[in-house]
């Protein structure tokens, strides 16, 4: 299971097996979206699968998540989604009303994201072979102008921007499963981040060096990947990381690190220092970007690692997530 949790094991699977055997000719680093050129036209391309329990949760559902998540992979890859295809894997006995609700949720999300669904496929598997339904998507998009994203272009002194509060999605799902008997006024943050990315690019395209949507494995895992890809250290200031009280409280209670919790409507960007103010201003003025902050910067040390400091002077390394986050009891 750890291989799917977005942390170390996932990365090892990709780098150790998929990349050497499948992506042999790959020149660029492994991001969420790939770049290809067809007859001289650059195209961004991505695929994603959605397995979530429960299918519906406060603030969203699997159908909406599938559209937003796919568009976000393209957006943080520096591209605007153009068209999308989908495959449903349905469990035998799934109520048609549930399926219809999810298709409607997808349709609404497509309209909001301004992207067309152009094809699809359906498979049905035996009862108990899937948690109701799985959704797999693929999408293509066109690269945004003047944007050159590459972890290797990141330099010491660059600023780390975060688009908004972290942990809403992961904690919402954890609570929605009902095992914890905790309640909180919390909703998944699922949304398409393209409008925010576009606002950022419009003002500061030449300063944006790297972007990622911190889904499974959270901000810590995304930034650890960056640290390893650029060979530098990422230094965060804990107090600057935006977070709702309910997320913080749940994490304190369960012994989880909010930096490891999944997000579905945020992104992290590395911006050259000269562009940082401009970039933050652009995000803060865009609808839904009011809580964006500069949460830290790139430094030479500690190389290949993420360091979180507190105002009182303590610091700690935050690694990638190893396996799923497990609540601590004793």
């Amino acid at each position, binding site marked *: 299971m750890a291989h799917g949790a977005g942390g170390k094991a996932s990365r090892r699977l990709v780098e150790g097996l998929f990349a050497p055997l499948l992506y042999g000719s790959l020149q660029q680093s492994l991001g969420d979206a790939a770049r290809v050129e067809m007859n001289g036209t650059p195209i961004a391309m991505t695929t994603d699968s959605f397995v979530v329990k429960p299918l519906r949760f406060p603030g969203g559902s699997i159908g909406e998540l599938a559209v937003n998540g796919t568009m976000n992979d393209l957006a943080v890859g520096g591209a605007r989604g153009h068209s999308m295809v989908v495959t449903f894997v349905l469990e035998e006995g799934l109520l048609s009303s549930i399926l219809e609700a999810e298709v409607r949720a997808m349709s609404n999300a497509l309209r909001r994201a301004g992207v067309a669904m152009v094809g699809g496929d359906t498979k049905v598997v035996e009862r108990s072979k899937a948690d109701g339904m799985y959704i797999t998507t693929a999408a293509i998009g066109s690269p945004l102008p003047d944007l050159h994203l590459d972890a290797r272009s990141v330099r010491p002194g660059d600023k780390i921007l975060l688009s908004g509060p972290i942990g809403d999605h992961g904690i919402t799902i954890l609570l929605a499963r009902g095992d914890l008997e905790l309640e909180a006024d919390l909703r998944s943050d699922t949304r398409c981040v393209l409008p925010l990315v576009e606002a950022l690019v419009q003002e500061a395209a030449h300063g944006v060096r790297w972007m990622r949507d911190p889904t499974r494995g959270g901000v810590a895992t995304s930034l650890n990947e960056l640290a390893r890809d650029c060979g530098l250290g990422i230094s965060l200031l804990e107090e600057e990381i935006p977070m709702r009280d309910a997320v913080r409280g749940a994490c304190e209670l369960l012994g989880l690190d909010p930096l490891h919790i999944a997000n579905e409507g945020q992104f992290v960007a590395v911006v050259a220092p000269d562009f940082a103010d401009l970039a933050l201003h652009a995000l803060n003025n865009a609808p839904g970007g009011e809580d964006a902050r500069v949460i830290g910067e790139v430094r030479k040390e500690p190389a290949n690692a993420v360091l979180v400091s507190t105002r*009182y002077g303590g610091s700690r390394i935050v690694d990638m997530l190893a396996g799923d986050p497990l609540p601590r009891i*004793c």
Partner: protein
Amino acid sequence: MRYVDEFRDPGLITRAVEEIHRIAEPGRHYRIMEVCGGHTHAIYRFGLKDILPEDIELIHGPGCPVCVLPMGRIDDGLALAQKNDAIFAAFGDMMRVPGTHGSPFEHKARGTDVRIVYSPADALQIARKNPERQVIFFAIGFETTAPSTALTLMRAKREGIRNFSVFCNHVTIVPAIRAILDSPDMRLDAFIGPGHVSTVIGCRPYEWIARAEGKPVVTSGFEPLDLLQSIVMLLRQLRAGEAKVENQYKRVVPWEGNRAALKAMAEVFELRPHFEWRGLGFISQSALRIRKEYADWDSEQRFDVPETRVADPKAAQCGEVLKGVLKPAQCKLFGKECTPEHPIGALMVSSEGSCAAYYNYEYRKTASLVTEISSVA
């Protein structure tokens, strides 16, 4: 957030650190053991070593229930579940702990019905919902978690739920402290007393440490300011040449403990004559077993337990680290064969284990330095 932010206030923390600098005697090296794994975790998580004077050395104690559990107990628990086609329920803390044939998670991948629960009551609920299946709750923890296991057993008996039993690994903290103090290679100046355990047992059980051993004890909370204030209190005692038990965690810990919890424990549990601790060996009267009045709900009395004994991997030096004789990075396997993803010793598994805490939060801050140390050793 109330009860959290006040205890992380930069101004107050700075003042506490200044006070520590002021009262620490120049040239004196202090060796203070935090008994509880929760404290170890907090010390690394909040980076307290960055702000404490170098001469205050914090030694990590044995208070991590996952870490002190011998591998044979995990093997036994999983074997019982497998043999009886039972549901194996345990806290998340246990799920990645390696047994001889893999962790509970790895057993799950091979088909054993393994469930994460957040309290023993959840395990009992699983038993109610699956009356045709046996449910074995793998109980771990010090006095912190023992009362909830006791209450769950009382409820199971009252409701006559027959398909539920507890594989009891509850241990008690005081004998472990005694074993540490009896260890000849251990020199300590003072103890940061456990916080959660003390909510149940209170502060009285530590009085002998002050009286007979002459070591100050301060029961502490888990926030940065709690720990720093506890260190201030310990240094004041040491400076005055005193040794007494003090309670810094008064907002949670009653001096006399929690009578209702102690009563439930006494109703259900009795002391085992002896129990094996990983790294510390057999310690007499250091663990709890289920009384015969509750035999029907005791996995050990109900089923045939294989009683597996597993020696720790020779190269791993968990025992020395557990007793505070070695620092995590001084173990030969640390960060090489033994990492949180591929733990060899239990101290690397639980996030409260000193090796995992050190690896996760501290190690790579000074990775080059650590390599130097281990290459010299």
